[in-house]
């Protein structure tokens, strides 16, 4: 401890610092490093640094790359446009007017968060494909739209627009209450106040949330894989997956494409952070104000119809299609009462069946990932927020890196890192490799939650414990940990929910014969047992979202009773 610079207590976080450094190096830095290494030195696998950059240059000059990259950007831009068209008007209406049933619409818009995109895509295929549910019920066949590039964009936008909707309706509300009403006092009418004050002030928020949609879209595997492949529309994610899983296997090519994809995701992420840090008006002042919303008047019916239309497209149709497929004895039997039954559920939950095994695998891995990522995230956040020295920036950056690493890239990195023949010991081909992959993908979540919780804790809470005679470690265990525990548990539940149904990394790195929920669903579709796949999808949604959501609600309740208000003032 250097005199004059460090306060007492920094020794305690020393242990955490090293746990965090080692953990992040193993989980995050290693796969990232190998992607770069293999892209530059294609023969590093055989211990040779020969022909550096040759492959990189080849791949970068390959017209394939231009096609994949171009398609990725096209899909991202198209999805962002559709999502903006859906979300911005709805958010503005929701924030500034009295929309009947507002809470119901909010709940319905939350549902897309619960349905993994690949399951939503599969349910749309069941609905819109030729002789699908829509044609059976109405005679209309929209298959041409579904299997088209605009169709992919619309589907992905339906999955992602709620992000924009929720961020924007809050931004519009706060900005509207704080500033636009001031504008009205000085003589601007409601529309002018919106156009001149609310909209410009909300622009960084709009841009940032749309960039988030862009990143989510270009990183998504399920939807482009399920829909795009049928029409030959390949993007970077599916291109990478191809190079890793199909003959001839091209690992350096996959690494190079991964670098291109990471560059795009990183650009979106950096731009988003910059926009938010530059001028985030939502954080000015903290006091919620009473917002007086205006009545819709003659627009009430059209606006309600708009909300109903969008939320049924985003929520009801996928959910009903999943249920219908799960309940149909045979898909060819169609939507007839005689064809309905619980046979698929009985078959899925059959003891010893592959469905139940896959479910067990995913739940165990999801739980394991929640524990590992939760602890590593909490420790890293503590070292970053309360620690000192140069390591902080390094740790902070490393813990955020997975934000710019799509699942497919993490999978490629892990394959490259842990498949090196000279490794004496490797978790490859064991379930442990999935734990590593999930932890890397999801680590930013607990870090973010713990960061927020820790920066809310007054420094004096820990200082008071130390003055009262507790050493640094005891102060952490007795004071800090109990206070941030609700946040960390919440993030662990979210990690569980996402990890237990992760698709692309599971497809790529799962040991041979080892199935998880997502792998099971995907394979059932490939093999034509759509009913079983959708039954699993239904169970997965219930188990991995409804149960965690209930847990989070209970936790919120408990923590409200237990530790209300972190600032005693």
């Amino acid at each position, binding site marked *: 401890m250097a005199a004059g610079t460090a*306060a007492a*207590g920094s020794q305690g976080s020393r242990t955490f610092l090293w746990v965090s450094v080692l953990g992040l190096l193993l989980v995050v830095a290693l796969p990232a490093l190998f992607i770069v290494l293999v892209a530059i030195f294609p023969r590093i696998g055989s211990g040779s640094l020969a022909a550096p950059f040759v492959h990189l240059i080849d791949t970068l000059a390959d017209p394939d790359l231009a096609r994949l990259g171009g398609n990725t950007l096209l899909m991202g831009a198209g999805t962002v446009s559709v999502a903006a068209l859906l979300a911005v008007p709805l958010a503005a209406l929701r924030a500034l007017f009295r929309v009947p049933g507002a809470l119901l619409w909010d709940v319905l818009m939350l549902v897309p968060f619960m349905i993994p995109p690949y399951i939503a895509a599969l349910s749309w295929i069941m609905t819109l494909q030729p002789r699908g549910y829509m044609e059976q019920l109405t005679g209309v066949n929209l298959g041409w739209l579904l299997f088209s590039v605009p169709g992919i964009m619309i589907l992905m936008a339906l999955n992602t627009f709620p992000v924009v909707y929720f961020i924007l309706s809050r931004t519009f509300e706060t900005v509207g209450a704080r500033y636009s009403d001031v504008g009205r006092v000085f003589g601007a009418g409601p529309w002018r106040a919106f156009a001149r004050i609310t909209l410009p002030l909300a622009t960084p928020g709009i841009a940032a949330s749309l960039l988030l949609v862009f990143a989510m879209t270009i990183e998504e595997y399920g939807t482009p894989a399920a829909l795009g492949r049928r029409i030959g529309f390949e993007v970077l994610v599916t291109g990478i997956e191809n190079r890793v899983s199909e003959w001839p296997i091209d690992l350096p090519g996959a690494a190079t494409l991964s670098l291109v994809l990471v560059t795009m995701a990183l650009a979106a992420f950096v731009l988003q952070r910059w926009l938010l840090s530059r001028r985030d008006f939502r954080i000015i002042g903290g006091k919620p104000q009473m917002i007086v919303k205006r009545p819709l008047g003659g627009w009430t019916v059209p606006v309600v119809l708009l909300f109903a239309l969008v939320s049924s497209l985003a929520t009801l149709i996928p959910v009903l299609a999943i249920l219908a497929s799960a309940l149909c004895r045979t898909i060819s039997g169609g939507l007839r009462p005689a064809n309905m039954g619980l046979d698929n559920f009985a078959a899925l939950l059959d003891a010893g069946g592959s469905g139940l095994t896959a479910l067990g695998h995913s739940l165990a891995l999801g739980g394991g990932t929640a524990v590992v990522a939760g602890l590593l995230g909490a420790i890293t956040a503590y070292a970053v927020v309360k620690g000192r020295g140069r390591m902080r920036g390094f740790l902070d950056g490393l813990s955020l890196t997975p934000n710019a690493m799509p699942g497919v890239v993490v999978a490629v990195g892990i394959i490259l890192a842990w498949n090196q023949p000279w490794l004496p010991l490797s978790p490859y081909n064991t379930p442990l490799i999935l734990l590593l992959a999930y932890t890397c993908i999801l680590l930013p979540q607990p870090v973010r939650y713990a960061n927020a919780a820790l920066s809310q804790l007054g420094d004096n809470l820990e200082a008071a414990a130390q003055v*009262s005679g507790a050493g640094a470690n005891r102060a952490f265990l007795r004071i800090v940990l109990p206070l941030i525990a609700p946040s960390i548990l919440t993030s662990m539940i979210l990690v569980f929910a996402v990890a237990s149904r992760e698709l692309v990394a599971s497809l790529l790195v799962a040991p041979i014969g080892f199935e998880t929920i997502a792998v099971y669903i995907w394979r059932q579709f490939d093999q034509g047992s759509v009913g079983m796949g959708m039954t699993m999808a239904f169970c997965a949604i219930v188990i991995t979202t409804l149960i965690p959501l209930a847990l989070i609600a209970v936790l919120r309740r408990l923590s409200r009773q237990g530790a209300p208000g972190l600032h005693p003032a």
Partner: protein
Amino acid sequence: MISAHPLALSLRGLRMAYGDQVVLDGIDLDLPKGQVLALLGASGSGKTTLLRLVAGLLMPTAGTVEIAGQTVAAPERGVVLPPEKRGLGMVFQDYALWPHLSVARNVAFPLEMQRLPAAERAARVTQALARVGLGDLADRRPSELSGGQQQRVAIARAIVGAPPLVLFDEPLSNLDRELREGMVEDLAALVANLELSAVYVTHDHAEALALADRIAVIHRGGIAQLASPAELIDRPASAAVAEFLRLGTLLPARCSDGEWVIKGTDIALGPGPDAAAAQVLLPERSLAPGTHGPAQLRAEVRSMQVRNTGFALSLTIAGTDLPVRLLSAHPARPGEMLALSYSPDALRWFPQAG
């Protein structure tokens, strides 16, 4: 834990710097056992840094800190005791009560750290809470209490372990004025009854004067004056101290041919020191309206505020912009000229070079 050593706190040559930026320098202090020392200063003066050095939440660059005869920090000799090894009590500005623990558990924490048996712990917690008048709130959460009650819990937690030294970091600054005035009296009584040795940081001179046996005025990282409250009021060591304590008006004075006058006027001030120029403190408490005193001034009323204790007048000395404040029993109109009398003995002279 009460030690037999006669000094509760002793600081020698204490220095604190972040790189080139010196926050504190040349601090020498002794606090006899059973006394209260106030560290009084404006924000940024270094008083809170000094307190955190004593607590061990910061480490000094040089110098020594002794608590009850034990050296707890002496960087030149490699002694740096962390806060938990110093056996202190401390009341924080934001109270820093742990929101997840009940009032009783908050207060019991220091005793738990001393590994006291549960029965004795419970008895001492009850006693400490009774001392601060919160006996019946032991099972509440801190967030269920008012600001003043939270303040009392923080005090109970600081005194429960009978520490040789209790540190107060602006403990009353979060309370509103009425509550603060009541708490100052309660706190003074508590400190006296328990014969606490305490260091009390504040920027409010009224608090310091009411509570402390000795006051150290901290100015620009050093001790500008260390004195008893009465001495401080009567004989401020410098113009800066007088100004900070708002003791009265500082008049610029000039001496020509042995006659002292207010600079730029011919208003005579009587005999002064042997210098060419000085600042003169005209203490507010030595001023009285009327012409009954040995020396007089004329002043023009600028404005008046009605107070519950009288009429607070803002005046300027006739023919100048020099402000004078006066609490008068009678109202006055702006523009009115008043005669003020004072005793030349009450003037305090601070000679200036040149």
